[in-house]
């Protein structure tokens, strides 16, 4: 589709390369001619974005690294730099039990979320590929969770999971599954599970939509061929469909990972990191260190742990997006 678009300009460049004053400054770059004026225009078009990325991404990331080696205190916030602290902030993170459990919780939370989101999301995606009354409605309404700002979602779940008068406990008692209401939010052994349930709820639509559109792209002939060969439903899924959509599954899990290690709003609204820090994730504890204890150096050190964790995905993500890294449309033609 996009291969077509590069062709006309290329032929113009090659065929009429020496015509007219307009093209006098033509430079041949990888088979495509770009006038000096066009070159300048391109850079001007790019300038706001380059400045923005430098200011809003590169600078904070570099500054965060600097902060993590500084001895900060409430008094130093007014200044842009503070005394050098060596590795003290990182040593603090390693020794601080809450930081350590926050890192462990982040792993548990991320792993649990991805497993839950994938299993439910994939099941729903498969369901929606079947023909039955209500499938279109189901598919279009499944994105409704995205209507709510995350902070509202968190608060609603807090309301629904309340010990007394919460819808979840009410349902479980009415159905007869439990006799005593469950303390979803204030039981230290359970709170992280509750946050996990809320996050799975939040992430399922994303998994469903991406996997559904991948399933739509599986050629009918392939499925029919497998059917004729006598493959059962499970075999067809495992041996035919999953291998075909594997690239999409990988991208979906990767994006899911990136989204999940960042989760903040939901936890702040649902439990605030409590009870007894049992739902404290790297994000929420970093916020606590920086903005409630005003230890920006320690917060920055913990941020860097999170950044490294998230950036593990970067090479993989770039590799999976290699198609979009082409320098322009139809470049490979």
């Amino acid at each position, binding site marked *: 589709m996009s291969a077509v*678009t590069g*062709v006309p*300009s290329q032929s113009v460049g090659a065929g009429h390369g020496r015509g007219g004053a307009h093209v006098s400054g033509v430079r041949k*770059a*990888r088979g495509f001619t*770009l006038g000096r004026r066009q070159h300048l*225009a*391109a*850079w001007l078009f*790019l300038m*706001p*974005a380059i400045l*923005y*990325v430098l200011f*809003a*991404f590169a600078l*904070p990331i570099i*500054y*965060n690294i600097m902060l993590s080696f500084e001895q900060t205190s409430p008094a130093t916030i*007014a*200044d842009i730099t503070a005394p050098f602290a060596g590795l003290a902030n990182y040593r603090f993170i390693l020794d601080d039990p809450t930081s350590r459990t926050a890192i462990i919780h982040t792993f548990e939370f991320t792993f649990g979320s991805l497993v839950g989101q994938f299993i439910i999301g994939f099941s*729903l995606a498969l*369901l929606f590929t079947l023909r*039955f*009354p*209500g*499938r279109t*409605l*189901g598919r279009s309404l*499944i994105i*409704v*969770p*995205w209507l*709510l*700002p995350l*902070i*509202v979602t968190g608060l*609603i*779940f*807090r*309301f629904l999971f309340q010990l007394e*008068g919460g*819808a979840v406990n*009410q349902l479980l008692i009415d159905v007869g599954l439990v006799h005593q209401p469950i303390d979803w939010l204030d039981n230290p052994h359970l709170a992280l599970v509750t946050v996990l349930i809320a996050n799975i*709820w939040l992430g399922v639509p994303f998994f469903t939509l991406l996997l559904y559109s991948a399933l739509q792209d599986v050629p009918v002939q392939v499925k029919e061929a497998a059917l004729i060969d006598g493959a059962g439903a499970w075999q067809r899924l495992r041996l035919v469909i999953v291998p075909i959509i594997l690239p999409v599954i990988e991208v979906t899990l990767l994006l899911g990972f*990136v989204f999940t290690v960042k989760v*903040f709003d939901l936890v702040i609204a649902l439990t605030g990191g409590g009870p007894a820090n049992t739902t404290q994730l790297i994000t929420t504890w970093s*916020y606590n260190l*920086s903005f409630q204890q005003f230890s920006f150096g320690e917060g*920055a050190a913990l941020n860097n742990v*999170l950044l490294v964790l*998230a*950036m593990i995905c*970067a090479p993989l*993500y*770039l590799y999976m997006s290699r198609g*979009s*890294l082409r*320098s322009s*449309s139809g470049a490979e033609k």
Partner: protein
Amino acid sequence: MTRLQRSRTLRWLCTLATVVALVIVLFPVYAVIVGSFESTETLFSGTYYWLPHAATLDNYRTVIQAQSGNVLTSLIVGVGTAVLALVVAVPAAYALAKYRLRVTVVIVSALLVAQIVPSIVLATSLFVIFHWIHLVNTYPGLIIADGTYAIPFSILVLRAFFFSLPNDLTQAARVDGASEWQTFQRIVIPLARSALITVAVFAFLNGWGDFIFALTILNGATIVPVTLGIYTYLGNYSTQWGAVMAAGAFAMVPAAVMLVVAQRYIASGLTAGSVVG
């Protein structure tokens, strides 16, 4: 059981599964709307009422009084984020799609990686940096920070859209003597309308729904978006549930309106986005 009967049963089971999934997916939204009309007594009665119990407009009265200014604040932040995203993303996406530059790979890689950076990392640094250059507790500061959600995504989506525009059009404009800027402004922008609306809607919703930057970069009480306003109803010992629900219902209005009004544009814009390949 005949084959026909079996497939009919199967279909009804599928419908049932969809209904169960939808109930779970939609219930929290339903609970916000029903809860927003409940009285404080009902909300704190210790019993959950599945259906509206004793409808009242008290919560809305409270919230309209307390949050009207905050709604305006959130609108300013949302519109500001959308404008910033368009101004930064549209020309950049055009350049990355239609001019063959050596830096394209570097910039696109940087944008892909930027999407991965957790907001809390940016928030911590931006707070100190903004403190230093006096952008803490200002609209520009918050809007710049909120742009971090939308701008990398917007550039990548728009770039994919610009790929789909035939080069003949811009080439023809150049032959007619139009400058690069004129070509961009008169030919490219009008053709990209649906993609621009998609990006603007997305950026608006990011600014509207943002909480983490509002919590960190606005440390005063002068600028309070709705998300932050709702958060203040969360007390240490008791939460004002009625107000949370009514404000929550307000907070989901823009997304609902935009999904209905701009659905056509969003669908076409996102389809263009999916051509990334």
